[in-house]
């Protein structure tokens, strides 16, 4: 595998590892919100991949992995569109 391939495979690998091992604990701001009693004020909005999970996939790992890969893909497409717009 050449170095150029690694530039792409590393984020995919990180998404894979994150789907398996990422901590499910609340993040820093959530912890502050829980400790100081304002967590309830948060308005949960639902979107396509809410909570980094892919709709219709019930396996937690696959759901999270597919959502993450979709995230990478959307960024790629976004920059591709901007690039085309420049040309």
């Amino acid at each position, binding site marked *: 595998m050449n170095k150029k391939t690694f530039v792409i495979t590393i984020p995919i690998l990180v998404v894979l590892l*994150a789907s398996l091992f990422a901590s499910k604990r609340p993040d820093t701001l959530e912890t502050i919100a829980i400790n100081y009693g304002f967590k309830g*004020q948060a308005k949960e909005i639902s979107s396509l991949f809410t909570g980094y999970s892919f709709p219709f996939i019930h396996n937690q790992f696959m759901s999270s992995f597919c959502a993450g890969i979709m995230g990478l893909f959307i*960024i790629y497409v976004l920059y591709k569109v901007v*690039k085309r717009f420049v040309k």
Partner: protein
Amino acid sequence: MHIPDGFLNNNLAGCFVVGALGMLGYCLSKILKAATIFTGALMGNNGNSNIGSASFGFSDNASKYFQNLAIIAIWVFAFQMFNIPIQSATSAHLIGGVFAAVLAGPLEGFVIMSSVLILQGLFFSDGGILALGANIFNMAFVGSFLSYYIYKTFLNKNHYLAVFAACLFSVLTASLSCLIELSISGTVSFLTAFEDMMNMHLIVALLETGITLVLLKIFKNLTRDTDE
């Protein structure tokens, strides 16, 4: 550190959205202008923003430039997914603002971080929609754009020191501005939560420094040979 909707006062959140859109428009116009007139090498920015030092004539470098911005954004997104457990019952992830700004430059860092935050807000419900402006201010403007200048200030002394100072500034100032926004909105008292917020983010800042240093080394090593 992604603020959800409901934590901020609507007026304040609205002001941040307007400010973020203005800054994003400015940065994008500068980047697009630079990309369309570029003939020289654009990436590999190591303390010097190349914008403004270009000559006329569109070239393939612009295409390579956008490809690199996309790859940096992809790295930031992927690493932000990886939550690492820190102290009791809390987790944290890389912000990546310093990583993006050191590799691409301050304006590009802002755009990369904003694009990742917008994606997270719109598609992943990670951070609110109305709170997007405040999140962009905290993590893209303070966490990436301003942090770049801290990095640049210390760069002539030592690269490692510069990254450390920039990461420390990035995480602590971003969390401070987050806390100020919350206290202006009347969500939490600034003085009550200050110590907890700073203690927690000091650990995050150290993690950010370590991960950023490793990622910068790997990324530069991987892209050096491909920039033929």
